[in-house]
């Protein structure tokens, strides 16, 4: 039987504690929880958002820490860069520790399986092949040495920081490929995600999904 978890690091980067998000959401904000992100700008903070809604992240030592923020800087040609809070750095394993990523996907199976053709994608929350509405989003998987580039997983319209449009959903060329993993009971993928509103206003037709094969 397969069980999925998505988790965030509720501790310091160097010594991650992976906390299950359970039924909470991942929220992208301005400087702090509740602050808006100006249209055509990437988020400045990422939070676990409860159903209330409120900030479900902890606030410090003994109470856990906030979700780690991985703000896209350069997503175009040239070296992809990310701001982890101390300025732009190249998007590499050396610069982005496992404990610094936005989320960890955990796939557990009671039988030892190998995985392949895994994808992480962004969609409208209803139809898995339809892009999220009014959102630009990029993603990157840590631990894949050949991949040091942000992958555009959502670009709804030509407005915003990404201007191609009509990108998103579980479609070829519009999703992040997850690395194949050999037989094991537990599989982990470490992902950085950055998001930007194309226009003003809260974006709610915005969800993440996973598709994966195992054998």
């Amino acid at each position, binding site marked *: 039987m397969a069980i999925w978890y998505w988790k965030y690091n509720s501790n310091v980067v160097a010594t991650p504690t992976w906390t299950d998000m359970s*039924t909470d959401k991942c929220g992208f904000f301005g400087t702090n929880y509740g602050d808006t992100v100006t249209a055509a700008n990437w988020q400045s903070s990422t939070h676990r958002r409860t*159903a209330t809604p409120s900030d479900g992240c902890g606030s410090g030592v003994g109470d856990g820490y906030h979700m780690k923020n991985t703000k896209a800087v350069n997503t175009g040609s040239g070296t992809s860069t990310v701001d982890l809070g101390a300025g732009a750095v190249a998007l590499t394993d050396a610069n982005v520790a496992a404990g610094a990523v936005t989320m960890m996907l955990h796939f557990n199976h*009671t*039988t030892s399986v190998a995985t392949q053709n895994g994808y992480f994608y962004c969609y409208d929350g209803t139809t898995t092949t339809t892009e999220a509405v009014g959102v630009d989003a990029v993603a990157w998987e840590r631990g894949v040495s050949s991949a040091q580039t942000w992958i555009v997983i959502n670009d709804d319209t030509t407005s915003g920081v990404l201007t191609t449009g009509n990108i998103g959903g579980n479609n070829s060329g519009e999703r992040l490929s997850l690395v194949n993993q050999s*037989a094991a009971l537990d599989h982990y993928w470490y992902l950085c995600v950055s998001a930007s509103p194309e226009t003003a206003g809260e974006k709610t037709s915005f969800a993440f999904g996973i598709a994966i094969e195992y054998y």
Partner: protein
Amino acid sequence: MNTIKWIAELSNGEIIEEQWEDGKLSPWLQLKKHCEENGLGIKRLKLCQGDKVYYAGEKLDDSRFSSAIKPVGYIAGKKEEVQLVPEIKTLARYAYIGAVYGPFAFLIWLGEDNEVWTEVRTNINKYQIIQSS
């Protein structure tokens, strides 16, 4: 909803049915290991759902098809679609079997909601292939 499972007939006449056992290798990887360790291959592979049966790369028993290409191997697997928000949950589950013909494989997919479709796959994972007999 009917459980989907594959059944393989091996070159020595053994019939192996997909069976998941906690803590062990997946049934497909167990079958691959068994075949490799004993010099066996798959003679026939089928996917069953209730009373429906689908064969991978089956050569029809008819002289008109005597020159049909025989698969060099077979693959089988499962797929899950999972949403992360508003709560993590599995949206859909599928299973497939496939016959490998060199650089491509012809797959038959079944969904738990009884949908059936085919796929021609070119990016075949060599570690998944079990040789045909």
